């Protein structure tokens, strides 16, 4: 690309003058990235900008609607369980036993094989103090990692980007879906969202229109940078690139270039990379299929976000949850197979969450109502496999308003993932120090 060639020849100039912090405001992230890589190289610095080839990747998988954790990781040997769920309780012969007490829902054969291979960790009884039973509010609590009586305006993933990924490519976060989840809200928003890569582009009614759009949005960079031998100085930067302050339009110009760049890249990868596993035709299946392509294509993403809906099982839960959990396990298994074939499984971790679990007692409609704590799953080659945490007691005396009590704060899981997998200090991101759960 024209711009990159120009920059390569001006390395010395860039190193000495342009790498001010305020520049991050006006220069497109993909160029800023090139700058920092150049700087690190020039200075022989040990700090390397993570590239698509080696950095660890987190895939966050939202199970929207409030998954019934008790029929997911089933305490099949527990009398309280069968007493509370005479209709929808799962019998011992219908679960995939993990030990003599608990087993996975029978539809989750994909997860069982991951478990047996030491690549699945089941974190039991995850929740938070003073649980909220509203979908909206509890989702918000999980997305922002806030206390249940506090409202945070930024999400935990957004705060991770703000704290640890300044100047990164916008594709540092990729959401397969339609809306940016609240977990991505940030002071400096990052991340791209798309469902179909074909829609993540400038739609033009002709080549001339597209050509003009590119020119209109590339102008800030069109004025040549000073020559190497001109003794380049800040004063000689083109007018569109102020060194301080930063007008809103400069930020948008930078984003416009990022948009162009990432749109081309995403579509090229989607067209080029082939999947090497069979996925279910479900929405989750196709989302993970896309993520596998993007990982295989070397996008410099640290966090992918996918979701699966439908877990709000107030009525006739048996059939619908079975279908959903089957889809979940089969899709994730296909994803891990695909990544294994690519040789990328070693650097990918999948983490599931749902806004709450459900009541211990079934309701009158063959379903369950909104509850509290539930298990989380973490999948990867390097996970601490097996059952983590304690299964919450189902004894009526131990319940709080009909719900199991949490044993593990979900923010300890986030802390573990941030510290041990994404290798960053979790306290500034989560607002305080949570004991990181050793998930890897």
């Amino acid at each position, binding site marked *: 690309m024209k711009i990159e060639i120009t920059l390569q020849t001006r390395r010395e100039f860039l190193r000495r003058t342009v790498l001010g912090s305020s520049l991050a405001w006006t220069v497109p992230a993909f160029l800023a990235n090139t700058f920092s890589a150049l700087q690190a190289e020039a200075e022989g610095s040990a700090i390397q900008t993570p590239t698509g080839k080696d950095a660890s990747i987190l895939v966050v998988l939202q199970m*929207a*609607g409030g998954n019934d954790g008790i029929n997911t990781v089933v305490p099949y040997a527990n009398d309280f369980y069968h007493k509370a769920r005479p209709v929808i309780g799962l019998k011992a012969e219908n679960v995939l036993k993990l030990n003599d007490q608990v087993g996975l829902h029978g539809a989750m054969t994909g997860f069982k094989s991951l478990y047996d291979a030491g690549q699945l960790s089941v974190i039991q009884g995850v929740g938070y103090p003073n649980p909220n039973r*509203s979908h*909206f*509010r509890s989702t*918000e609590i999980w997305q922002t990692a806030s206390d249940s*009586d506090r*409202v945070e*305006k930024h999400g935990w993933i957004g705060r991770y980007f703000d704290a640890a990924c300044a100047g990164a490519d*916008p594709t540092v976060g990729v959401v397969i*879906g*339609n*809306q*940016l989840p*609240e977990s991505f*809200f*940030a*002071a*400096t*928003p990052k991340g*791209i*969202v*798309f*469902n*179909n890569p074909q*829609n*993540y*582009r*400038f*739609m033009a*009614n002709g080549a*001339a*229109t597209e050509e*003009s*759009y590119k*020119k*209109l*949005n590339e*102008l800030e960079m*069109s004025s040549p940078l000073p020559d190497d031998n001109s003794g380049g100085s800040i004063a000689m930067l083109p007018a*569109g690139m102020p060194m301080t302050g930063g*007008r*809103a*339009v400069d*930020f*948008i*110009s930078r*984003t*416009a270039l990022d*948009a162009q760049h990432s*749109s081309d890249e995403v579509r090229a990868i989607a067209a080029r990379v082939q999947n090497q596993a069979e996925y279910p035709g479900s*929405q989750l299946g196709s989302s993970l299929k896309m993520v596998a392509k993007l990982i295989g294509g070397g996008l410099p993403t640290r966090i992918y976000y996918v*979701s*699966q*809906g*439908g877990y*709000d099982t107030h*009525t006739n839960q048996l059939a619908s949850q079975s279908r959903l959990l089957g889809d979940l396990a089969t899709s994730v298994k296909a994803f891990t197979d695909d990544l294994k074939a690519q040789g990328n499984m070693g650097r990918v971790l999948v983490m599931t969450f749902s806004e709450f679990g459900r009541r211990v007692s079934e309701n*009158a*409609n063959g379903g369950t109502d909104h509850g509290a704590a539930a298990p989380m799953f973490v999948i990867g080659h390097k996970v601490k496999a097996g059952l983590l945490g304690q299964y919450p007691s189902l004894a009526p005396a131990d319940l709080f308003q009909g719900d199991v009590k949490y044993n593990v704060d979900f923010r300890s899981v986030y802390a573990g993932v941030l510290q041990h997998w994404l290798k960053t200090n979790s306290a500034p991101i989560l607002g305080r120090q949570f004991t990181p759960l050793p998930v890897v």
Partner: protein
Amino acid sequence: MKPVSGSIRLTNHMLKPLSSDRWNFATAAHLLNRAGFGGPPADIQKLCDLGLDQAVAHLLDYEYTHDPTTDPDWAKPDPDEVRQFREAIKNAATPEEKRKLQQAREQAIQRRILELRGWWLRRMATGPRPFQEKMVLFWHGHFATSVEKVRNPYFMWRQNELFRQNATGNWQELLTAAGKDPAMLVWLDQAQSRKLHPNENFAREVMELFALGEGHYTEHDIGEAARALTGWSLEPDTQQFIYRPRIHDDGDKTIFGQTGNYDGDDFIAMIVEQPQAAKFITAKLWNYFAGAEPSPAVANALAANFRANGNNFKPFLHVLFRSEEFYSPDIVRNQVKSPVQWLIGSVRVLECELPPPLVCFGALRQLGQDLFAPPNVKGWDGGITWITTNTLLMRYNDAQALVEGQLPPLTANDFARKEGGAGGQKAMKALQRVRMGGVDVEKILTPEQRADKATIVAALEHRLFQTKLNSDQEQTLREFLDSKTKMSNADIVTTVRLMMSTPEYQVT
């Protein structure tokens, strides 16, 4: 907070009025863009001709302009409907029947809230009181209440109307009314608060988010205020606020260091008396209209002015919009348009039709501003957070839809409440019947302006930006028109779209 004599010098800075020689087309455009949603050159010229003071009065003193909008026909309390639904649910023979009743009700909610979104957007786009609607939008973002929890279109309409009636009135009156508003009573759980179990949600947020800001109250104040607020409740049958003395805590409370047998009204009055209260709300208004945090000097001047005006917004806003600071170069054309500002401003500036409610809803949701469903009680972050790589591309593509009269690229999940929800498919079907207007070139350009590429580009720049793009961009646009053998109206429409597909169009 008493001034400490000797150690703190209070700035006596007052906002300077803009000198009359700086009042011109550009400053008039800035006023209309910010105190309204912008408009075509003729509207700006009209304001300009009025002179600054009259122009501000024309926008702000909207009471003198008749607004013929009528309310949605369901916008009234309907105790019968509430009772009937409750009865029907109680008498439902099977769970299946019950589920169907709830589903029908859910669909009615969706239908009405969509109608409500369209109703409000139409007021913004074509109504005669743009400033009033701009204030309603401010209050909606400020008291950020979501139908996702409230689940009642009548309550949402009523709150919207409350913001309209009290848009520029007295702060204590508005804050009290907003607290007793049914949507708020549900949104922040005040309706569930009891003497024995005071709910602190509203007590906390009214201080943290609505009136004072963090650090200007204690956790103890929250607990005591929650006690004072007990008794504020909602009468489910009449759907009105009700004060229930039996659940009110009648004991003494200590709030902000003062002790007394306070109730909710007392508590709100005590908040507004705090010196921080004027600073907090005036800074937020400045941020909304000027697009930046006020400097300490401006912040002090704003708060002093507001207090001097008895905590009344109208006279204070008159001063704000006439101040030199409001027209300073780092304020003008340096605010990121919110999605609503982008949409409504485009419709007004291009004198085209507002797209149907379903299209507006889908597009605004994609762009990150779902009216009546802000992300949380903090409202929309605004500013540069409106802009991501994908929202920017969507703005560029929505521009094409708007000017060319096509449907924007929307998918089922843009409409569904939940990912994969059934509402999405229904909306996609309904979308097939939707007709979009598009831009009428002959309405926005005179025959003389359409004569050649230079005059086309210049006239459109004037209309869309009220200033010029840089010369390279102008050149690109002229070359685009040059590449067309004959400059058809369709080519001119594409030129408009290209101008809207620039970073410059995203700011105002």
